[in-house]
């Protein structure tokens, strides 16, 4: 058998449930000598390594999910995700993109709709943690720009940035998961949109709670809308938007990259 075909069949054997491990094709089985130990046992060692190590990667990235649903539930859900969405890069600590969308379609999680947004939050935290290093906008940088061209400036958000809007109180869910003794149980019935900026200014990842207009402004900047137009659009939707206060707050928070 050609090397490519062997590797493809081996891969398919790994990304299906272990109880189906013997369902590989005969020409694949014929590649191996069993000796004292059956082919099934031998393949199981690899299955355990591949699926076990990837499940562990997800467990490390999604501690809040583990806390909310328990280890067994998360492991079963991870396994199904892994079979459908194997990693596409050797940089496995970044593995897990799309887990939130997968949870949306995962029947056993249907009764816990907030899990999807908690997964989105954890993906954002992980992305920020491993994002490439970039430099924050210096406090006086915009003052150097001639006033007449200020409106054309495209103010970029840090490479670590994710903006999240959710109908669930993600911050209280997180605090409760991390320390149930000192935080109240979150009220999941109350309709209250939570808007968050996840960003890593230096080494630590920050979670910043945003007002509606602030969120809109950051969203426009993320879409590379020039500063002037972004302010205009935000003020159209939110006439009380205070751009000066916004700029000052996010310069201090180091939300922008250098020009």
């Amino acid at each position: 058998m050609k090397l490519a075909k062997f590797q493809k069949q081996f891969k398919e054997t790994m990304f299906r449930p272990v109880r189906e491990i013997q369902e590989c094709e005969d020409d694949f089985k014929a590649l191996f000598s069993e000796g004292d130990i059956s082919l099934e046992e031998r393949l199981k060692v690899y299955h355990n390594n591949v699926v076990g190590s990837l499940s562990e990667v997800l467990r490390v990235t999604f501690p809040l999910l583990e806390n909310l649903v328990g280890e067994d539930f998360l492991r079963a859900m991870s396994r199904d995700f892994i079979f459908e969405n194997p990693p596409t890069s050797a940089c496995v600590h970044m593995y897990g993109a799309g887990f939130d969308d997968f949870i949306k379609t995962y029947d056993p999680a249907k009764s816990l709709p907030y899990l999807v947004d908690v997964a989105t939050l954890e993906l954002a935290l992980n992305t920020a943690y491993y994002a490439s290093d970039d430099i924050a906008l210096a406090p006086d940088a915009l003052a150097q720009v001639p006033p007449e061209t200020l409106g054309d400036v495209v103010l970029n958000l840090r490479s670590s940035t994710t903006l999240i809007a959710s109908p669930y109180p993600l911050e209280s869910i997180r605090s409760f998961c991390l320390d149930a003794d000192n935080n109240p149980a979150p009220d999941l019935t109350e309709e209250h949109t939570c808007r968050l900026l996840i960003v890593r200014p230096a080494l630590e990842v920050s979670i910043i709670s945003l007002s509606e207009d602030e969120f809109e402004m950051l969203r426009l900047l993320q879409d590379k809308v020039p500063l002037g137009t972004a302010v205009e659009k935000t003020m159209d939707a939110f006439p009380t938007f205070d751009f000066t206060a916004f700029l000052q707050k996010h310069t201090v928070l180091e939300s922008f990259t250098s020009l």
Partner: protein
Amino acid sequence: MSKLATSHDVSRAVPFCPPDLSIDDPVGIGLRSPHYQEIIDQPPHLGWLEVHPENYFGGGMHRHYLKQIRQDFPISMHGVGLSLGSDQPVDEQHLRQFKELIDIFEPFVISDHVSWSASGNAHLNDLLPLPYTQETLNRLCENIDRTQSYFGRKILVENPSTYLAFNDNEMPEYELLNALCEKTGCGLLLDINNIYVQSHNHGIDPIEYIDNVKHENVGEMHLAGHIVKKAGEHTILIDSHNQLVRNEVWDLYEYAVKRIGSIPTLIEWDQDFPPLETLVEEAGRARSIIERVTAGKQSHEAG
């Protein structure tokens, strides 16, 4: 002690590493995040540290610590993701990210494995086995060539632990390793625990293995712990990197040092981390074997 990293730099087209990056003390350990702070606060008695470059592809905390630690220690970069044995070219983006780290951290040695992990777009996150055929040899050579020309440096390739036995092997493992070195100018990272695991799992003679790999190609050795797994009435050894190096492996290591010489040697430990002290003690045990063998040779020569 002589500058170890360059002592096996046979003059080939691919440079091994700049002479100023060579090391003075032959033993090191794998650098893992639970030990970052302790290593910075009290640099342990070690010659060097080894990292998996894939853990530093992003920015942030990990790179920050590595930059600090690099000031005190030489670093080797041991890839786990090049997938040299895949029947497809090594991923360009992976090479680019790896090279970026080589330029920043100047490792004294660079390595990856004689195994595969990627098939098509999927990455299986494990070091998977290969049939030892001409086709495999050719594919490995193409990927090693591609990697070495991208890096502008020689790499070492590591012998694997495997749990499957192929019917159509055309050569023993050591012959494949020798051929890789001969055809590409790469060197060998000889993992002594993996040789022991292979000898148990596939009934080969570890002494014959060590005698038959071309000694001048060996640029680094690995030592690690393995577990014994029951499979029906028999046992299979799993290269688990989660415990002390076993005595049988220490014996085999001593034999390898006698035959091959004083080679940079690493203690690998990748899960269920022990206190740093345990790793430093294991490294100390490797150092004392090297010193004992070297002293024995010298007195033998003198006598």
